[in-house]
């Protein structure tokens, strides 16, 4: 398929050599190896990931910063979070994060962040710890999960602190 816009000319007129497919295959296998490094296996038990992805508990303060950051956690693009009032421009596509720690146990929160599609294949919630089964991932994101295992543990630790206030 010709992807060159009609108005732009290719800088090089050289035909693609036989080296290119080999190189592409090599890069692809490197990327795959990297992706494997970046997403470690985890066990799902009764709709939850009971064990920490890092083997250690996360840090709730760091987790809050990740949730509040629209370039890192991306959470507030869709979710509202009345417990983070200093961040304006929150979404209303998904439930308020307040009280999330009362609604779900830690292992359930973890699986919901790691791969929400397990509960509803059509969800708009992206899988935060998954690199396979995706299409046309932008080159700077290829082979990388949205958050690292450490970041996910921080977010899980933060969300677990969000208890429903009893009225």
């Amino acid at each position: 398929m010709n992807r060159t816009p009609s108005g732009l000319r290719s800088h090089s007129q050289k035909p693609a050599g036989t080296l290119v497919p080999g190189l592409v295959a090599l890069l692809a296998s490197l990327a795959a190896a990297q992706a494997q490094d970046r997403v470690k296996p985890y066990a799902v038990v009764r709709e939850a990931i009971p064990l920490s992805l890092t083997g250690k508990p996360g840090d709730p303060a760091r987790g809050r910063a990740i949730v509040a950051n629209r370039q890192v956690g991306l959470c507030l693009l869709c979710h509202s979070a009345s417990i983070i009032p200093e961040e304006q421009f929150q979404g209303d596509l998904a439930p308020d994060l307040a009280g999330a720690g009362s609604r779900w146990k830690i292992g359930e929160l973890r699986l919901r962040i790691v791969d929400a599609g397990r509960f509803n294949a059509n969800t708009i919630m992206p899988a935060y710890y998954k690199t396979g089964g995706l299409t046309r991932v932008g080159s700077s994101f290829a082979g990388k999960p949205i958050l690292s295992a450490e970041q996910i543990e921080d977010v899980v630790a933060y969300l677990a602190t969000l208890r429903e206030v009893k009225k």
Partner: protein
Amino acid sequence: MTAARRIFHILHAASLPACAAAICILSLAAAPLRAGDIPLNQRQSGYDTMGRDTRAMQDDDTANPATLWLLDGEALWSKKEGAAGKACADCHTDAATSMKGVAARYPAFNTKQNKPLDIEGRINNCRTEHQQAQPLPFENKDLLALTAYVARQSRGMAIAPPPENMQPVVDQGRAIFEKRQGQLNLSCAQCHDDNWGRKLAGSAIPQGHPNGYPLYRLEWQSVGSLQRRLRNCLIGMRAEGYALGSPEYVALEAFLMWRARGMKMESPAVRP
């Protein structure tokens, strides 16, 4: 009288506009609404949901910054270009007549090139074939100016349903629209069909209609093409953009025009 019999009668009336109307009815029938499609009577232009100030900017040509591009486009229309030394006006004379309604029915299938062309592609096709000039790259100021000028001639007109020969392109565009893409694994449809009106990062998600392009976007501080806007969304989905001018974007444009059929053209519009 059944619908088929009615169409038969219309065809036998044999007047050209009636035939065109019948073909419109047929192509609408060929592409029925699907479950996730926005009901026709619920469709709204981005204009309907934007703020009063932005609307006022679009309503008044002297306040609409895109007017500067329009004036450039008007001048370029009569400027001789390329080895052939021809201007657009040499063949198409007065754009107000010859270009009226053209942008409301593009992208269209170009039988000579055997592919669909959007307005930008058609202008470049004229440049290379008739003016013997270099095609202009996407988002080039002159190409935006000419596109805005051509699209201006359809302002207020209803978007025409794509003809039968565009149906495969419309279908291809729908497939791309509904395909989940990028690291965030989202499709266009998940936001613009399923969740329009709800808030993403504090702003209401628009239905995503193409009826104002090319348009002045406050965020860009410039006029930009529909393809540029589509690429913006793909970047937001952390997906690999298609090359500007690629068949995928033209197919998406064709699907969006089908989706917005009957809506009024506003080009060049203003959007936040």
